[in-house]
């Protein structure tokens, strides 16, 4: 054969791709599954696959700025004497002190408070700084019960019983030794530097019939004042929502698979749970079937990034949304200004997810005092406030364009879908048609 003979091109396998092969080699070398932070990175049908049908001749839009478009929402109107009143329907999801640095938690509190919304504790208890800087604070009640005590419980403006989260429905928490600093260890009653694995089920109840009794106890301890949310990772949203309602929840928080975590197995993040887009309609259906839609509020989280996402989630029936990853990015997570340092860690801007290692160049997902000092909580809080404002304005822009004077008046009929998948999951018609997969009569 001469050099001129045409040859078969080397073809890389779609099945055994380079990233897959690298993971096989990594597993073979280390003997441990890959652990990382964040939510699902794979492409899944999402809000981007939906579009709004703006007003035109058949219905009429509202003027921006001049004609009102309300954004406020009250969560916990079912049983609580003091429901959570928010200026905007965008809340900050639970993230622990431990997973995040003290200044990062403070920044979340500051930003949320300035925007008139709530922030949430995480798997590690409530810090005084966090309480002090958060005008409205939701206290998470988790299987680990780290730092759980009745005094903090009574300081909370709402209690969120965490059954699961979108990144790992059915899994427990995890915080690796690098981040168990003295203060984190003390708050969690753990030895310093150990790999902390939290339980996946609550230690003193299993199932909705027991949950109902747990909710009774929490209400008795907090004098029936504050709302009790139940947070679940999206898997079987219809049943889980219905059971949370039957157990007595004031609010159901449904977290899709794009929702982040501080640390868990990659296989969990990418392969367990359903996309956020797919969980809203079944959850709303459950509320409607039980006659409590809008009475028991639905908060949706997992991959909410913009006012468009907020508006779409609300059009599908959510009362509010929660953001986690997006809030961290607003604070400064994965900022290109740290590119050189990301490269030293073997990663790059936008891909950094080794939050469990505590080496975050941006100083957010760390307990290292020097790194943590890189984040100015006042300035970062202001960035979060700005971002929340922008998202709200964007959502209002869309709502007005659809002719609504309140974000909560958005409805599924304001939407169409770009793909069959999104049409099926969101149960809205494919753009330009009146058909979606599964709709009767076709």
């Amino acid at each position, binding site marked *: 054969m001469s050099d001129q003979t045409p040859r078969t091109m080397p073809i890389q396998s779609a099945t055994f791709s380079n990233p897959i092969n690298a993971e096989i080699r990594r597993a073979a070398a280390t003997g441990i599954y890959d652990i990382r932070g964040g939510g699902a990175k794979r492409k899944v049908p999402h809000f981007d696959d939906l579009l709004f049908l703006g007003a035109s001749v058949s219905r009429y839009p509202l003027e921006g700025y001049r004609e009102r478009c309300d954004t406020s929402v009250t969560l916990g109107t079912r049983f609580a004497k003091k429901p959570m009143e928010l200026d905007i329907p965008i809340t900050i999801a639970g993230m622990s002190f431990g997973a995040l640095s003290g200044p990062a938690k403070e920044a979340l509190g500051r930003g949320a408070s300035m925007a008139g919304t709530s922030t949430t504790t995480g798997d590690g208890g409530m810090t005084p700084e966090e309480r002090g800087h958060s005008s409205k604070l939701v206290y998470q009640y988790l299987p680990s019960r780290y730092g759980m005590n009745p005094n903090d419980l009574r300081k909370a403006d709402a209690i969120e019983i965490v059954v699961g989260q979108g990144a790992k429905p059915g899994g427990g928490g995890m915080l690796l030794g690098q981040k168990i600093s003295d203060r984190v260890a003390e708050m969690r009653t753990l030895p310093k530097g150990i790999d902390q694995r939290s339980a996946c*089920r609550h230690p003193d109840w*299993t*199932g*909705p*019939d*027991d949950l*109902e*009794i747990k909710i009774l106890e929490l209400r008795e301890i907090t004098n029936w004042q504050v709302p009790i949310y139940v947070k679940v990772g999206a898997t*079987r949203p219809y*049943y889980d929502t219905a*059971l949370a309602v*039957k157990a007595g929840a004031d609010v159901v928080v449904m977290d899709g698979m794009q929702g982040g975590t501080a640390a868990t197995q990659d296989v969990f993040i990418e392969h367990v749970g359903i996309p956020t887009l797919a969980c809203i309609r079944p959850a709303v259906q459950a509320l409607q079937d039980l006659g409590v839609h809008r009475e028991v509020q639905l908060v949706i989280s997992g991959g909410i990034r913009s006012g468009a996402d907020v508006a779409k989630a609300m059009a599908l029936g959510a009362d509010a949304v929660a953001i986690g990853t997006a809030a961290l990015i607003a604070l400064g997570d994965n900022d290109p200004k740290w590119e050189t340092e990301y490269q030293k860690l073997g990663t790059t801007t936008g891909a950094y997810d080794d939050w469990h290692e505590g080496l975050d160049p941006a100083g957010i997902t760390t307990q290292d005092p020097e790194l943590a000092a890189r984040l100015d909580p006042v300035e970062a809080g202001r960035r979060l406030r700005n971002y929340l404002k922008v998202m709200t304005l964007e959502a209002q822009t869309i709502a007005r364009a659809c002719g609504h004077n309140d974000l909560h008046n958005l409805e599924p009929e304001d939407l169409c879908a770009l793909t069959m998948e999104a049409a099926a999951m969101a149960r809205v018609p494919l753009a330009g048609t009146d058909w979606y997969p599964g709709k009767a009569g076709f």
Partner: protein
Amino acid sequence: MCGIVGLFLKDRTLEPELGAMLTEMLVTMTDRGPDSAGIAIYGAESDGSAKLTVQSDQPDEDFATLAADLGAAIGAEVTLRANDTHAVLELDGSKVEQARQAVRELRPGLRVMSDGATIEIYKEVGLPKDVADRFSLSNMSGSHGIGHTRMATESAVTTEGAHPFNTGSDQCLVHNGSLSNHNALRRKLKREGVRVESMNDTEVGAAYLTWKMQNGATLGEALESSLQDLDGFFTFVVGTKDGFGVVRDPIACKPAVMAETDQYVAFGSEYRALVNLPGIEDARVWEPEPATVYFWSH
């Protein structure tokens, strides 16, 4: 997810009170199961005859001439005692299978709740108190009974989805928990020719026990093997002609309390269900161990 109650009388003089005692226990478990409720009651036995309890959504229509129609179909005398949506048909004990078949043909809308010499099963959608009232459960007498209140997890809130489930002649099963391999098991049982009508996990558990027993296992053996073959969380209470049995999965998260006196053995998902039983203050009260089969019988 549910509430379970069970009462087995040692003191026969209490038999006229059985329905009243069980009803009170059942209503106490409303919070655990507001969707539907049911009761299996083991009453008097008459020689050689069997009872078929049936349910209809149109009882007036379905029950009007049922005794005569069925009697003609199986060539034997049949009596009918209607009770709201349910009716108890009494007939020759050797004709039960024939009668089941005939009922399916005569009244396709009818559901057979149970068959046996003494068992009667009543169950409907609704709050336990309403279900108890519509069947006048508190007036019933018997030697033992099992009740169930249901908070549906993944299957529909329907009469078929309510417990107890009839697992064989004079046998029934109630369940608190959630089975995680019921779909695969349902397919396996269907291949084996076992009839499973709903998507309910407990019905599969019941069908599994029936299948095991049809293949020669005793109820105790079938329960023992359920510990191997059923995945998920369960506390089962099974009723038999002579008594009842209890088994919890090896993890045993779902609650179970037992009480025993000279007069009775009682089961409750919570102690609350037992508080008004006579002499409960001095009863032996304990929790059944995980993965252990218990039986009480006359």
